[in-house]
């Protein structure tokens, strides 16, 4: 592709090796991007379910999920709209802890993560196991704000952030891949920021 006349890279230009291709450092900001209005979720009735192809379909309530071993993530997050936020801290539980109880069946290969709003996103099972994904309710030591997916969201930081479903309520294990909301709407099925898998058709 040709060079853009007169463009050398602006103030955002960092050269930070933690920045995937085509991304910029959003600094202290945290843009809000959703397709729907932010829901109001009552913690007294909130539940998290893991079901589908598992031996032991399980639903946790707000107190129950806090009884699982605490886990946290410190690192970067990358949004397909090209911002990257460095050094974030999230806390909650590891998805591994949920799967250890629910026990995936051998034929399970993919999951669909679903929000209370109906938003959903698909992921290969191996992208949410072995310490790669969390269910989180704290950001930076404070309760996760509603506009950022609070009270509880999924966190899959090695993929573009639309995979980290806000307002998560269910993970369904499946023996095949099925497109979620943004994937049906033109975005990539996997979404690896280091491979720039932004849209359908990207390698």
């Amino acid at each position, binding site marked *: 592709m040709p060079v853009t006349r007169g463009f050398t890279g602006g*103030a*955002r230009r960092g050269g930070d090796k933690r920045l995937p291709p085509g991304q*910029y450092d959003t600094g202290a900001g945290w843009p809000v991007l*959703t397709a729907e*209005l932010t829901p109001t979720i009552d913690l007294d009735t909130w539940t998290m379910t893991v079901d589908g192809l598992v031996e032991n379909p399980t639903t946790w309530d707000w107190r129950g999920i806090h009884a699982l071993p605490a886990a946290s993530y410190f690192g970067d997050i990358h949004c397909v709209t090209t911002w990257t936020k460095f050094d974030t801290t999230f806390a909650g539980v590891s998805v591994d802890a949920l799967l250890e109880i629910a026990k995936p069946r051998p034929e399970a290969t993919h999951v669909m993560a679903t929000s209370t709003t109906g938003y959903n996103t698909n992921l290969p099972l191996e992208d949410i196991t072995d310490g790669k994904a969390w269910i989180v309710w704290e950001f930076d030591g404070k309760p996760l704000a509603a506009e950022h997916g609070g009270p509880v969201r999924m966190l899959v930081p090695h993929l573009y952030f639309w995979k980290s479903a806000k307002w998560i309520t269910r993970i369904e294990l499946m023996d095949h891949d099925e497109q979620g*909301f943004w994937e049906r709407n*033109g975005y990539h099925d996997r979404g690896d920021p280091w491979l720039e898998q932004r849209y359908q058709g990207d390698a």
Partner: protein
Amino acid sequence: MTEPVVEAVASSWTTGTVREVERFGETYVRLRLEVADRHDHVPGQHYVVRLRAPDGYTAQRSYSLASDPADPLIELMVECLPRGEVSGFLHDVAEVGDELELRGPIGRWFVWGGKVPSLLVAGGSGVVPFISMLRFARRMGTASELTIVASAQTRERLPYIDELEEFGAFIALTRENHGNRVAAHIYPDELAELSKGIERAYVCGSAGFVSFIGRSLGEAGVRSDIVRVEQFGATA
């Protein structure tokens, strides 16, 4: 959530040649481009603009289209943001004849196919995708299905205000009087009146604006599951 209305097109990178540039003070720049191998868009969709430095460094951002799909050129109205790497370049440097890398059209959720009676609520540059919907509707003879509400601090901050006024959009300026309406935010009572008979609502603006309008639509009795939103900008 309902299913998307637009068929999948795997978009790839192409080239756009700038044919017209118009700058509106320090705030907005309008670019009209001729796109090689162009696919028709659906009103509400966006393009990605990618800039490339001599050493291979790139920066890319998404911009909604303002143009009707039948327009021989695509039209972008870009708000110039402080330290905006791409918007600053488009505002300060881009000239007629420049070639830009483009990818699109993208997005199959925040789109209007021309039939569903809809309320469109915009804050500032959030009006851009609604201009595409309006121009399309006028050509198709379905403009009566659209109710447009547009808000900004001042007249200067609301792109396409002349086109919106001519259509009869409800305009709410928050720091200036506008016609008979004094400077004020959009009130739930106003939205309740404007949302009569709609089957869908689209809200586009900053995260703060969308959040504010979301609450107001709720107070106005609009069900949240008929509301589609698009947001931009940073929060602290």
